[in-house]
C-alpha cells in the first residue's frame, strides 16, 4: 500500500496563549512546535497499515522551512519519504492549501506512481477549518470519509468508523480513497533511536508552490476573555458531601 499523510506544523500551546504585538500570530518565542494532534495519529495509522500490508508511507506538509522538523518527526516513527511545500512562512487559507497539496500530489503520483490512500487529520489544531482533506478529495475525484476513529483496509476497500452521538457509523469506500482521522484512532508510538537517526539523514524533497488565496482573510486574533469566577467552596474533604448534594438538589439533579 502506498500511503501519503498530510501534516501541519503548529505551536505546542501550553496553558495560556499570548499573541504577537500585531495580534496576527501566536507569540511562539517560548513555545516549541509539534505535529497537529489528529495528524500525529494519521502518521501512526499509516505506519501500522504499511506494517500490515507492505508498501511505503510518504509524508507531506505545507509550511515554513522549519516544518522540516515535523516531517523528520514523522519519519522517525516510520514514514519513508518527506515532501515539504514551502509556504514562505505565511498562513495559507484552506482553498490555497488544498490547491497546493492537490498539485503536489499529482506531481508525486506522476513521478512515483499512485497513492492508494491519502490520510489527513480531521481538522488542524490551529485554524480548525474542517475542509482541506475534503477539498483535495473532490479535486482528485476520490471518495472521502472524515472524522474516522477506526480504520481497516481489506479487498481494496476502506472500512471506517466514526462516532455519532453514542453510536458509531460505518462507512465503506473503494481505494484509492481519502480519509481524515481523529485523535483516539490509535496511540502514536515514541520514535526509536535508530528511527531518529534514519530520519535525521533522510533526504527531503522541497517544492515551491504557488499561493492562490481565496479567503477568509484574517484581520487579527483575539485571546477570548473568560469570565473568571471565584468558586464557592462547599467544603473540604468528605465532610462537604451533604452540602454538595444540597446543590445537586437545587439544580434538580437529585430528588429530595
Amino acid at each position, binding site marked *: 500500500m502506498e500511503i501519503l499523510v498530510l501534516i501541519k506544523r503548529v505551536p505546542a500551546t501550553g496553558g495560556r496563549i499570548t499573541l504577537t504585538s500585531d495580534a496576527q500570530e501566536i507569540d511562539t518565542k517560548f513555545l516549541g512546535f509539534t505535529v497537529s494532534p489528529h495528524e500525529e495519529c494519521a502518521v501512526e495509522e499509516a505506519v501500522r497499515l504499511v506494517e500490515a500490508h507492505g508498501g511505503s508511507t510518504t509524508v507531506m506538509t505545507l509550511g515554513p522551512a522549519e516544518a522540516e522538523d515535523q516531517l523528520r518527526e514523522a519519519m522517525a516513527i516510520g514514514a519513508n519519504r518527506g515532501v515539504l511545500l514551502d509556504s514562505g512562512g505565511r498562513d495559507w487559507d484552506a482553498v490555497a492549501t488544498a490547491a497546493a497539496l492537490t498539485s503536489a500530489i499529482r506531481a508525486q503520483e506522476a513521478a512515483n506512481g499512485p497513492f492508494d490512500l491519502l490520510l489527513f487529520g480531521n481538522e488542524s489544531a490551529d485554524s480548525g477549518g474542517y475542509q482541506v482533506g475534503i477539498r483535495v478529495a473532490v479535486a482528485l475525484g476520490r471518495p472521502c470519509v472524515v472524522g474516522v476513529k477506526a480504520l481497516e483496509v481489506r479487498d481494496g476497500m476502506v472500512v471506517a468508523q466514526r462516532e455519532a452521538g453514542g453510536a458509531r457509523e460505518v462507512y465503506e469506500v473503494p481505494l484509492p480513497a481519502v480519509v481524515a482521522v481523529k485523535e483516539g484512532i490509535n496511540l502514536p508510538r515514541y520514535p526509536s533511536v535508530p528511527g531518529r537517526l534514519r530520519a535525521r539523514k533522510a533526504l527531503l524533497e522541497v517544492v515551491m508552490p504557488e499561493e492562490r488565496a481565496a*479567503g477568509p482573510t484574517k484581520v487579527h486574533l483575539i485571546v477570548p476573555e473568560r469570565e473568571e469566577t471565584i468558586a464557592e467552596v462547599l467544603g473540604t474533604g*468528605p465532610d462537604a458531601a451533604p452540602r454538595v448534594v444540597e446543590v445537586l438538589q437545587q439544580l434538580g439533579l437529585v430528588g429530595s
Partner: protein
Amino acid sequence: MILVLVEHVEDRPERTSLEALVMARQLAAGGAGGPIEALLVGEGAASAAGWLAPQGVATAHVVSHPSLIDYAPVAWAEVIVQLMAARGPSVVVASGTDRGNEVMAYVAAKAGLPMAANCLAAETGGPGEPLMLTRQRWAGSLIEEARLTASTALLTVAPHAVADEETDAAGAPTIQAFAPAIADADLRTRVVGRIEPEAGKVSLSDARVVVGGGRGVGSAEGFADLEELADLLGGAVGVSRVVTSAGWRPHAEQVGQTGLRIAPDLYIACGISGAIQHIVGCQAAKVILAINKDPEAPIMQRARYAVIGDLHSVVPAISAEVRRVTGR
C-alpha cells in the same frame, strides 16, 4: 436570501441547528437581507420543519429522496449546490457539527467557494459587501476576526456558543418539496452500518450530568468511584486527554479540543487541573463543580462550586449521601 441547513433527529430540529438559525436572523437583520429559508433532508424532514414556526423561517425546503434516507455527505452537499442555483442565497449557514462542517466543506469544494467553520458572529454592511466574521481557532482557545468576500458566503456556527432563542416573528414556514438530481458518484460516501452503544448507557454528548476525571484520578481502577457517582446521577463519565493517553479510559470519553465538546447541566471535574485544551470542551456546561486537592488549580477560576480534597474520599462520600437522600 439566507439558506440554513437544519439537521434533525427523527422529527425534531437539533439544538445546534436552532443556534445556526439565530445567526441567520442576526445576518438578515444586520444587512445581508432576508428572507430565511431552511433545508431539511431525510426521514422526518417535513415534521421537523413544522417545529421551525418560532424561528423566522419563510420557506422550508424538504428533501425526501430514496437515496437520502441514510446520511450521505456528498449527496447532501449536492442538494445544497442545486438549491443555491435555484434560489441564489447570499449566505448559507449550517451548524459546526461533524455533519454540518463536513457537508459545507463539500459544498465549498464543489462550488469553488471559501468556507468559514465555527463562526461565533457574522455581520455585513449590506448586500455585496464583505462579511466580517468572528470565528473559533484552536477549538475556541483563540478567536479570529476575518473578512470574507464571496458570491455566496458559506459558514458554520460553533456549537453551544450562541443561545438558541426563538423569535416573535412567528409563523409556520411554507413547506416545499425539493427534488434534487443525485448521481451515483455522490453516494459513494454514505453510512452503511451503525454500531449501537450498550443498552442503558447514557451518551456523553447528551448527558445532563458528566463526571469528569483527570490526571488526579491516578489509575484506570480509580475511575470506579466516578462511574458509581455518574450512574447514581444518571450521567456519564468524561475524561481529559492525559487519561486517554495513559490508556486508563477509551478515547470516546475524551472531552476537550481533540475530543467531544459537551454542554451538560452539571460538570463535576474531579482531579482535573483545567488546562485550556480541556476547558474548551466543557465550558458550555451550565454549572461546573470542581473537586481538587489544589485550591490554586486553574479549574477553580472556571468552576461555580468547589470542594477541596482528595477525590477518592470526596466522590464516594457524595455517592453515599446521594444514596442516603434518595433511599437507594
